[in-house]
């Protein structure tokens, strides 16, 4: 069961470089063959300074950037094999391009447990990761709500 004492807790920062090749890979896996995600040349030809961020590319920063994410979620008392994704929200504060170095800090912003009549319980946990770039500029807030059936 989710450990409520962790609400408000922030994990140590993690750092990730925004990689052109990973953006291309993600866009192609989704089935988006827009050339702006394929190469810097195509992005620049379309008027972008470099390969721009695919709208859901922040998912790369958590899974690839934060190597400790799974153990951090486990440390909250969550069984990661029973996690369902409830909500995902991105607030894009400033442009992010391939080559940027981002630092993310994940905070547990909310959590509650609902008891079912059959004795089961459902944890509802919300985390937020605030990202700044190599210039210290806030560039992205990523908020996620997960559901955990116990």
């Amino acid at each position: 069961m989710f450990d409520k004492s962790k609400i408000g807790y922030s994990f140590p920062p993690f750092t990730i470089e925004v990689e052109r090749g990973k953006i291309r890979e993600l866009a192609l896996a989704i089935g988006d063959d827009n050339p702006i995600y394929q190469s810097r040349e195509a992005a620049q030809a379309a008027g972008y300074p470099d390969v721009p961020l695919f709208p859901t590319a922040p998912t790369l920063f958590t899974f690839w950037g934060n190597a400790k994410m799974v153990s951090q979620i486990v440390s909250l008392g969550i069984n990661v094999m029973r996690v369902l994704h409830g909500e995902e929200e991105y607030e894009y504060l400033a442009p992010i391009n391939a080559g940027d170095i981002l630092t993310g800090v994940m905070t547990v912003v909310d959590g509650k447990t609902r008891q079912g009549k059959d004795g089961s319980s459902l944890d509802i946990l919300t985390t937020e990761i605030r990202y700044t770039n190599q210039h210290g500029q806030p560039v992205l807030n990523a908020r996620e709500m997960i559901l955990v059936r116990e």
Partner: protein
Amino acid sequence: MTTNTQDPTKLYYEDVQVGDAIPKLVKAPVTHLQLVRYAGASGDFNPLHTDPKFGEMIGTGGIIAHGMLVMGFVGQMLSDYVGPTALRKFGVRFKGMTRLDDVITCTGAITEKHEVDGEARISGKVQATDQNGDVKIMGTFVATLPHRSE
């Protein structure tokens, strides 16, 4: 607030009216290969999305797609519509599981036009449904658009 680079799309604030539909995106049927590819691209290797035996074991009845893949489909529609760097906010709620062979259609509509922080912005609602009309994702977005005179 930083001045962001303008997305090099052809859509202007004046072209958009409240109630307008966003050009819909119909995706190819979801395949097992696509889920394997998406797992590798995104870094989400939860076996729930790639290993049919695991799906049977935990009772989901076969593998289910990553929710983030379907959010990616909606992201593709928004990228096509306003361009990736025009997005200010994009959030979704996951409403149902997507399975192999599901054909996902992404749709959306403009709900508001407003000026904030010196930017002309549009807000909208988005949705992803399968071939039976079952809703997989509901969400909202905010994007900034250039004025025609700029």
